[in-house]
């Protein structure tokens, strides 16, 4: 595509370059970080990063309806005080721990989707996570995940061993299935392991020769892929991509996962789908308001997202980061200063293609009469409509029917999380 350049002038007086009719992420990233963006950018292939908040995040304290008196009435101890909320649109605002994300909101690359969730009424973490990962709410016997089904049915994408990667010790349900996908705990340790590099290389050669000579069927093709992946990693050495200055990833597994996703993207390994998760959202007791347990968790999330976006810089033009959580939490606080298992929650989308700067989805309100079973935020966006839109309009999936069996995706219901 033709790239036109125009000059942005920030009030601070910094001159920056951007491209295209819409302000591109290049400029956005640079703008918010106050530093110039990289000079040239060839549009790359779209990338989706899914982050699962396991334990059911309290959507109401993440994207706070501070314009609603009911919110404050129902949560005398744990509501985020108006003075602390970072206002977004006069009604909703960010939890103060998410302050680091405000610049992305302002430049239109961060959106929130509220009242999203599952049509299934379960309040079991286990079932609800399962449903969100298989993409078949209410059907327990589905064994593969919707991201894997996407990879299986969408074969336009050039298959590299790194097309779909989950960070963690095991392949999560969402990526389980017959399409190749990798679970990587540590990029550095992927491949044959030996105390010395020379031994490792010889061992790799030895196994490769063994499998080339004697493997048949699936063992042959999978081992081919494995050694190809090892070769790619060796050649590209993603670990050489150190985070850019200012990309301050949080310590711990979540931050490490994001850092390694960024490395894979920068190393051009053919990554299309990445997955990571973070726990600690099941705040039944003492969840806190502006500070406390939930604030700390949100702080880690925001720091991770901010570092990731800063680290990728202009590459965020091709990336959508989508958060998800199995359900939300009760509107009313409980007797322990916490919240119990609810229904709808809020999700975040960050990246160049995101139709950002707005809270998407139809807000059902907090009026008890409009709540689900009289107590929880009602679901107005089926999570499959959100996920489906991202697959269709960001990754370009031509057909969602095999990805979400038993569900007819309808673009009319898409929350419009991806820019037109």
């Amino acid at each position: 595509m033709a790239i036109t350049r125009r000059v942005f002038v920030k009030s601070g007086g910094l001159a920056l370059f951007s491209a295209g009719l819409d302000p591109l992420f290049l400029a956005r990233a640079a703008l918010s970080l106050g530093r110039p963006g990289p000079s040239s950018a060839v549009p790359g292939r779209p990338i989706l990063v899914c982050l699962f908040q396991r334990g059911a995040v309290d959507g109401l304290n993440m994207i706070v309806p501070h314009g609603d008196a009911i919110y404050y009435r129902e949560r005398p101890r744990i509501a985020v005080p108006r003075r602390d909320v970072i206002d977004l649109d006069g009604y909703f605002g960010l939890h103060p721990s998410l302050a680091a994300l405000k610049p992305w909101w302002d430049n239109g690359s961060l959106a929130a989707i509220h009242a999203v969730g599952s049509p299934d009424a379960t309040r079991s973490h286990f079932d609800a996570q399962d449903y969100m990962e298989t993409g078949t709410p209410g059907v327990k016997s589905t064994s593969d995940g919707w991201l894997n089904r996407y990879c299986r049915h969408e074969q336009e994408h050039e298959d590299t061993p790194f097309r779909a990667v989950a960070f963690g010790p095991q392949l999560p349900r969402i990526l389980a299935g017959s399409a190749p996908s990798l679970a990587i705990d540590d990029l550095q340790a992927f491949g044959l392991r030996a105390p010395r590099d020379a031994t490792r290389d010889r061992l790799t050669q030895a196994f490769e020769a063994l499998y080339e000579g004697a493997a048949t069927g699936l063992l042959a093709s999978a081992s081919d892929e494995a050694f190809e992946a090892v070769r790619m990693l060796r050649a590209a050495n993603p670990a050489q991509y150190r985070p850019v200055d200012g990309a301050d990833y949080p310590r711990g597994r979540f931050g490490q996962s994001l850092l390694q996703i960024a490395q894979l993207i920068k190393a051009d390994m053919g990554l299309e789908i990445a997955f990571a998760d973070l726990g600690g959202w099941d705040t039944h007791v003492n969840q806190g308001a502006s500070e406390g347990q939930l604030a700390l968790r949100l702080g880690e999330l925001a720091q991770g997202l901010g570092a990731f976006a800063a680290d990728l810089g202009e590459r965020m033009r091709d990336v959508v980061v989508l958060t998800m959580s199995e359900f939300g939490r009760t509107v009313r606080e409980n007797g322990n200063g916490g919240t119990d298992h609810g229904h709808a929650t809020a999700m975040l989308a960050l990246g160049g293609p995101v139709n950002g700067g707005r809270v998407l989805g139809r807000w059902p309100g907090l009026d008890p009469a409009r709540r689900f079973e009289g107590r929880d935020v009602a679901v107005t966006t089926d999570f499959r409509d959100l996920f489906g839109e991202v697959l269709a309009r960001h990754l370009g999936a031509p057909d969602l029917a095999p990805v979400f069996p038993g569900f007819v995706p309808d673009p009319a219901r898409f929350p419009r999380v991806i820019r037109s």
Partner: protein
Amino acid sequence: MAHRSVGPLVLLVAFAPCLAAQVPAGLTPRDSALHALNRLAYGPGPGEVEQVAAMGVMRWIERQLDPQGIPDRRLEQRERAFAILDYEADELAAMFVEARRAQLERQRDSMTARAAPVDGAAARPFRRLAAEFQQLAVVRATLSERQLLEVMADFWTNHFNVFYAKGADRFLMPSYIEHTIRPNALGRFEDLLIATAQSPAMMFYLDNWQSVAPGSTPPRFPLSAMRRGGQGERSPRGINENYARELLELHTLGVDGGYTQDDVIAVARIFTGWGIERPRDGAGFAFRAWAHDEGEKVVLGQRFPAGHGRDEGLRLLRILAGHHATMHFVSGKLCARFVRDDPPDGCVDDAVAAWHHSGGDIRAVLRAIFRSPDFWAPQTVRAKVKTPLEFVVSAVRALGAEPDTTPRLAQVVGRLGQPLYLQSAPTGYPETQADWVNSGALLNRMNTAVALAAGRLPGVVVRLDDALPPAADQAQLVAAVNARVLGGAMSERTRAAISDQLSAISGGPDARIWAVGLAIGGPEFQRQ
């Protein structure tokens, strides 16, 4: 080093004429012994191929079908080190209640709660016991002389899957395995089915404890203690179909078993009231009459008249256990486990016929499978890829090594993708190679193999000197590895590839580690 007796040969010679005839043509006695050990057992231990071949493979199979007749003293000795076996279900329940209470108190006390995971400290004793219980499964699979029993315990654990990490199942799981699955693993299917239906572990896992007749009210506030304090799971208000659906789809008839959604609802109504005692009362199975739907139900065209309580559930389970669709579905799964991923019709038919004649005697069904021509067909031999559990256990057995009592070897199985008792989906772990073979998994297996050969795999003591006496030359080394690790079935290509690699490193002290590591991590050892 592992020493395995194959039992009193003298006694068995008497049966030789009638059984020997069933050993199929086409396989040598050695090959058929290796095949049987790969499928009915977790692979051969040192010398076992020869022992089974000498005794006659069909006679060995008969012996495995009657595990009570096989002494298993070494395993019994090892089991004593597992403290988890000393706990009764009610003791674990009491620990669980106490841990929850302590956790809630701690959280209330801490005014500025730190980011400690909400589920943290309270779960710790259970995590430790759970890890020990997983290791027990690995130890049993590795050391038991009753290998077929262990294979079938694993099969039924997956068929009647329960997720160890779901709420109360953290303390219900051990008794589920010990008292529900294992005693029935080679018994009658009907008994096993009823035992699982009356197990608190299954009732919790598939939510049946919450399933009550609409409008029924408990005599007192029910079961809230099962869940964490004030978790928001309110008192149940109607039927829950989860157990009913999985009972039909996964435990008995199979997804194409000819039932409808109306059947699922009727089954759920029949099981209303099947639940669990409160943890402080011992958390045993309980039928709560107040919650039972007393109305008439129709399942699969059969009428269940109004006014029957728990009995109608038992009647339904018996009908399902003896249903033709169940025989077919479960026989098909058994053939997929023992014969080929895509089970041959002939074998399934043989199993179904045996099921029919024997009234669902699992041993009779297995015997039919092991006598089926499909089981011995050349295209069956080495047709299946090992699961991570089968891979790890068969490798440890091949080297005559011994797992220790720490949870570490079970953790190796977990890292290879099969954390034991932790499959969250009610389908259990899959049986087909497509589910286990992928690039990351293969690399992990190669690393595991090399670590095992080098004595670096945690949780197991390997003495390569015992397993593989120093060889005079490279050819002798490869021959010894072939005999010990690959049961003498090493292909020419593998022999050539391993020999080439040994030449490349020009012998040296590591040659043995390389040869064993390559053999265990190579393609042939992934098959069984």
